[in-house]
Structures are given as C-alpha cells and as structure tokens.
C-alpha cells in the first residue's frame, strides 16, 4: 500500500479509530491490531512475502529467549550468528544472488574459464533491507546486553512489522521502539496534530517535489546520450531533489503516522542539503541507516580507534557497505566509495565533527564561508547522485562526461519545467526557514491560527494541483 494512495487514505483512519476506540481495552489488543494492520499493509503488495517477516520474527524471538538463558559466550555467539545468518541469508538470496552469480561468471571468464550458470528470476520483497536491519538490531542489542529480550511475541512481531516504517524506515533500534510496544498508549492531542502536520509535509515533498522532479529526471537520464551538458546538469539536479523529496517525504509520513498511534520514531533527515561538509551531510541524510552502520559495523570493526590506516579502512568499509545495501549494482558501490573519498580529507584533518549544529543557528542568513561550504557539499552530492541514479557505470561516466561537454553553457530547453523551477527554490526557502525544527512545516506551530490554516490550504491545493504521475517510492526497491 502506498502512502500517497486512496487505499492508504481509507486504511489509516480506519486503523486509527479501531486502535483508539476498539482495541484500547488492553495493550495486547492494540499490538495485535498493529500486527494485523501491518500485515495487511504489507500484503497489499505481495502477501507471499509475509512469511519471510513472520519467519524472521520467530527466529529472532527464539534467539532472544535463548540469549536470555545462555551465559556461555560460545553458545551466545552461536545464537547471534544463527540470527545473522538467517536474516542476512534471506537478504543475500533475494537481493544479491544474481549480482554475485553474474560477477563470478564475469570474473572467471576474465581468467579464461567459462562457467555456465543461469540467474534466477527473483522478485525482491519490498522493504527487506529495512526490516532485516531492524530485526538484527534487536538480536545484536540483546547479545550485547543493551536490551532485555522480550518474552512477549506479540510485542516483538509488532516491532518488526510496524507498518509506518516497515518498508522504507526509519530503521528503528529495538532499544528505542520495542519498549514503546510494552508501554501503555496515552493519546496526545499535540503529538497527533504534529503527526498530521508532518504527514502533510511529507505528502507535499513526495507528490509535489519528488514526483514532478522524477518526470524530468527519468526523461533526461533515459535520453542522456542526446542531451546537452546543461540539460544533463539539470537532470542531475532534478534527481537530487527527487530523491530528497521522495525519501525524506516517506520518512515524514512514517514518523507522522507513528505519532498518531502514540509512537516516537527516530528522525531520519535533518535538512541534509544545508550541510557545510560531507561529514555533516551524512549526519543529516538517512540518519537511521548511518547510525545503524556506525553502531553495528563501524564501531565493532574498530571505528576511529587505531592508526590512520585503520581509520581509512573502516571509513571505506562503512561507506562501500552502505552503498551496497542500497542495491546489487556496482553503481551503488561506487557511490559509496565516492562518498568515502569525500569524507576522507575531513577525517584525516580531524575536521569531521566541526559542523554539528544546524547552519546559521538563530540567524536568517548564513555567513559567506557557510554558503561556500554548503555549495561545495551540495555539488559534490549532486555528482555522487549521478552514480546512484545511473543504470550502470558506463552510463554514469558517459553522463558525467556529457555534463562537462562544450554544451554546458548552452541554455537548456526548460519548456514544461518552468513551474517546477519556481517551486523547488520556494520549497528550499521554506525548508531554510524551518531548518531549526524537526521538519520545516513544524514552523506552523509558532504562527497564528489564520496564517497556519492558510498555509495548510495552500499546501493541500498544491498537492491537488501538482499531482503528477504517481511514482513508486525510490527506497522501496532497496
């Protein structure tokens, strides 16, 4: 079920009313309703893959119980690796089987050996990368004794399948979300209003910004061989805003929806395009994944401890793995490696934590230095997104080559793009003024009611008027 669909517009109020008026007699019933709603939400795409979620949940539940009883370190390790093998096994098979097979065949043929193996026609279950990482966080935290294993299967099943963030995150930590399933839910008016506001802003980002940018980005990337450099640059910019609107829009809707049910999900985006360096960008982009890799990969392999070589190695590992998490394609790996290259100078100069707070805090305008930092970071990101969006590495390199052709300074044909080229800067301006909030529209809290409602109506009208071709959320494919 898509968030931006009529199905969801009916589903959400129905589940909301059942949750607060019918299932509110006990916590257990509310959690059972969440599981039922989540399985329905997921099964709307393909009910067959519900068995994968259920199987992962059962395995992690049993591993958790096993870990609570096991004191012997060897036994605990076996249990942990059982969970990791099962969860990553599913992920590896569904997402990476064909990639590895094809690359092995290519590698062997390079050395003169011919291997005959046929790839499988595997359908990638929606959101598998997200819920796999979420369930793993439970087992790893229990193993590390950061979390007491739950004995309530219902709670764990609700945690694993919680529909607002099931298919595209934020990837929640068991330490944050699981205890919320064990706590009584008290309806909060302000939290719910804030949730609705965040849903509205998420829909705006997805429908108005992302889906409209997608039309042009898709066209330009598909026909890149025939485009001028200036048009290719415009295509890369459109994709830059598409992916931000798409993914942060999804996260806003997810977080807002969870709020309606009394849950607090972690923040996933914090105005990344206002970052002054790439390290700051990665603290503000897909925060739940970055911190997941930091806590469960970067720190366990040594983190920033050790010598320079170790730091460099660990940085590359985390960025390349993060790239590979996005998809079984060399483009994602290069995208990850490129970001590692961007990050490296900051790490080596020990300047990777110099921009922690949001830019120009408490001020309207940034300094010239801040503007410079933001511009450089933004354009480096745009360049990296070309690899992320391209069909393959050849396409990415020819696209970049095309940008830097002699036609870069030719005025692009912006017929059909004029409205969007006006809306995107206005959107950025709104985001700038709301950057100290959790999401830009949270600014509305401070406004007087008439002003607030005028803005809501304008956003709803914009969503209505500028609904383009409905596009799948980009991150569903991951």
């Amino acid at each position, binding site marked *: 079920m898509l968030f931006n669909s009529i199905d969801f517009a009916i589903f959400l109020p129905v589940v909301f009313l059942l949750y607060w008026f019918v299932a509110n007699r006990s916590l257990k019933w509310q959690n059972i309703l969440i599981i039922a709603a989540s399985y329905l939400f997921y099964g709307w795409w393909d009910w067959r893959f519900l068995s994968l979620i259920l199987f992962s949940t059962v395995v992690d539940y049993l591993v958790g119980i096993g870990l609570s009883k096991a004191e012997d370190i060897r036994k605990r390790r076996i249990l942990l690796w059982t969970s990791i093998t099962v969860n990553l096994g599913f992920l590896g098979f569904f997402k990476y089987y064909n990639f590895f097979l094809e690359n092995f065949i290519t590698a062997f043929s390079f050395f003169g050996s011919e291997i005959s193996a046929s790839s499988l026609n595997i359908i990638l279950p929606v959101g598998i990368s997200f819920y796999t990482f979420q369930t793993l966080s439970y087992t790893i935290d229990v193993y590390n004794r950061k979390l007491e294993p739950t004995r309530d299967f219902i709670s764990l099943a609700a945690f694993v399948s919680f529909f607002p963030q099931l298919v595209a995150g934020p990837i929640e930590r068991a330490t944050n979300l699981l205890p919320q399933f064990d706590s009584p839910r008290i309806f909060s008016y302000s939290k719910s*209003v804030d949730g609705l506001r965040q849903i509205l802003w998420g829909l705006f980002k997805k429908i108005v910004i992302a889906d409209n940018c997608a039309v042009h980005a898709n066209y330009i990337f598909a026909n890149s061989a025939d485009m001028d450099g200036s048009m290719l640059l415009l295509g890369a910019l459109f994709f830059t805003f598409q992916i931000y609107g798409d993914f942060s829009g999804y996260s806003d809707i997810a977080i807002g929806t969870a709020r309606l049910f009394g849950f607090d999900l972690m923040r996933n985006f914090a105005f990344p395009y206002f970052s002054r360096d790439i390290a700051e960008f990665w603290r503000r982009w897909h925060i739940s994944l970055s911190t997941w890799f930091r806590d469960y990969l970067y720190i366990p392999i040594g983190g920033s401890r050790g010598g320079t070589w170790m730091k460099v190695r660990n940085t590359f590992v985390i960025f390349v793995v993060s790239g590979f998490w996005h998809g079984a394609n060399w483009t994602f790996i290069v995208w990850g490696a490129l970001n590692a290259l961007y990050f490296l100078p900051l790490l080596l100069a020990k300047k990777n934590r110099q921009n922690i707070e949001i830019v120009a805090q408490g001020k309207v305008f940034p300094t010239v230095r801040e503007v410079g930092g933001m511009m450089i970071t933004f354009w480096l990101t745009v360049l990296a997104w070309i690899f992320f969006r391209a069909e393959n590495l050849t396409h990415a390199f020819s696209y970049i080559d095309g940008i830097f052709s002699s036609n870069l300074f030719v005025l692009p044909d912006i017929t059909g793009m004029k409205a969007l080229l006006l809306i995107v800067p206005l959107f950025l301006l709104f985001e700038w003024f709301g950057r100290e909030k959790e999401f830009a529209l949270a600014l509305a809290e401070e406004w007087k009611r008439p002003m607030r409602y005028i803005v809501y109506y304008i956003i709803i009208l914009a969503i209505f008027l500028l609904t383009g071709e409905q596009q799948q959320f980009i991150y569903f494919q991951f």
Partner: protein
Amino acid sequence: MKKFLIRSGLFLLSVVILFVALYILTDSHIRTLENDFMAAMIDKHQRADEIGSTKIIIAGGSNVAFNIDSRRIEDELGIPVVNVGLSVGLGMDFIVNETIDVAQEGDIIVFSITFFETIDGLYSLKRHTAQHYPRANHYFTFNLSEEFTLHSSRLRDNLLSIVYGLISSAPPSAETDDLFESESIYTRSGFNEYGDFTGHHGLPQVDELDQRFTFEYSYWTGIDELNRLNREVEKKGAQLYYIYPAYPFSDFERNRDVLIRFDEDMRKDLEPPILGSIEDGLYDESVFFDTAYHLQQEGVSQRTEYLIELLRSER
C-alpha cells in the same frame, strides 16, 4: 481525543467546502464548446426523432460515422437513414443502450463495431457526451468513484487553466476534450445532416494510421451485448443486422488467426444475422484516413455500395 476528532473533522470539512466552492466558481469560467464532436449526438437524435418509425439506423462507433454515405443508401433503397455512430470510446454498453433507445417499430438496424471493443468505455467521455445531450445519462450507470476522479481532474484542469491564464495574461481556455481538440477536424460541424462524418473528405491520408493493434485472442463479451441489443429491438419490432468493420488487408493478415477465431465465435453465438463475411470488410491500406477503421471518401463509396447490395439481398 474528542477535541482531536472534532478539529480534524472540521478541518477536513473545510477542505471539502473549499474544493466544492472552487469547483463551482471555476466551472462557471469554462465555456462548453458547441462545436464539440460529441455534441453531434444532439443532431443525430433529432433526425432520428423527426423520421420516427421505419428507418435504417446505422449504429456503432466512429467506424460507422466515418465509413458510410447514408444519403446514397436512402436514395437507393428509398428508406430514410440516420447514422448514430459517434465514438467507440463510449463503450459497447452505452452504444447498445443508445441504439435500443433510438430504435422503433419497422426499423432496420445495421450495427458495426471495431474488433474486441470494450464493454465499459471511458466514463469521462460518457459524462462529457451527456453534458451535451442529457438523454445520454440513461445510456450508462452512475459511478461514484469515477465521478470523484472526473470532477477532481476537472477542478484541477480548471484551476490550472486559470492560473496559467493569469501568468500569461491570457483568458481561461474553453473546455476541450483530450480526444477532440478544438483545432482538429473532429467537430460537430464535420457531420452532415444524415449523421455521417464528412469532415475528412478530400483530406490526404495521415502519415501513420492509428489503432493498428496486434490482437490476442480471448472470447469477446461484446457478443452478449449484441444479443441483448437483438432481443430488445426485436421486442420493439425492429430488425438488427451485424456487419464487420472496414479494416486494412495488412492488419487482417497480421491478426488472421485471432480474427478467424473471433469470427467463429461470432458465427456460433451471435443471435442477429451477420451481413457478408469478415473478409468482405477488408480494403487496401491506401483508402483509410487516420486510423485502421476510418475510410477516406473513396473507401466510403466502396463500403456504401457493398452495404446497399447486402441490404437489397436481405429485402
């Protein structure tokens, strides 16, 4: 909770009121084109009503609107003719209901429709037609979800038209249908007094003919609709005949196996008699105008002559 539900409910209501108000306000800005292609239904039905009973009704989609010379049939057979064919986008269901409505005692109905045509058609086109000719509201079923989609997109188009009009200092454009833009030959004035479309006469063939589909076989449920039509017009004392549409040789060859099976189903299950054979409707590609079903003037002449022969032999 109560406060939240009341406030969010009121907000939702205010949004609905805002949209309804905008709809009412913007819709009055929009002129309906009198020369719209679908408005030709008014003239066709007026002629049918004026003739009354004992007439020849040519019914179907645009294939019959484009391909028949009704004046010649009337002159040769001495029976008044009306061509009610308009657009296949209306769907079999609509066209069958319309034909039942027009038919009277003693009428001869010649029905022809493009291969494998859908039953439902386009809801927006049906509503659009009914706006011109309210009696057409009886030819299809009201659908709430389709209505919602239709009015939403209409409000969107109207608002965008006004916004773009303001930006470019141009007045809001008149309502046009995607299918029949005001600049095209597809207009009400392109029809003659018999209901035949003649707006394309004398024009050269377009570069590439449209609707050149490659079919996949499945049993055509349109047969049930035609049998329904047959039963209803029989009750009224009219006679129904079916005739295959005019179609290019080359397209028939490409779809031969499927269309032969289609013909077998028709011969087996269709209750009204079929005039001629499927092959008799085949013409050289050069006599078509813009689609694989619309003939040019030369093709119209051949087609009409053939139909007159068939009707004569039936008498």
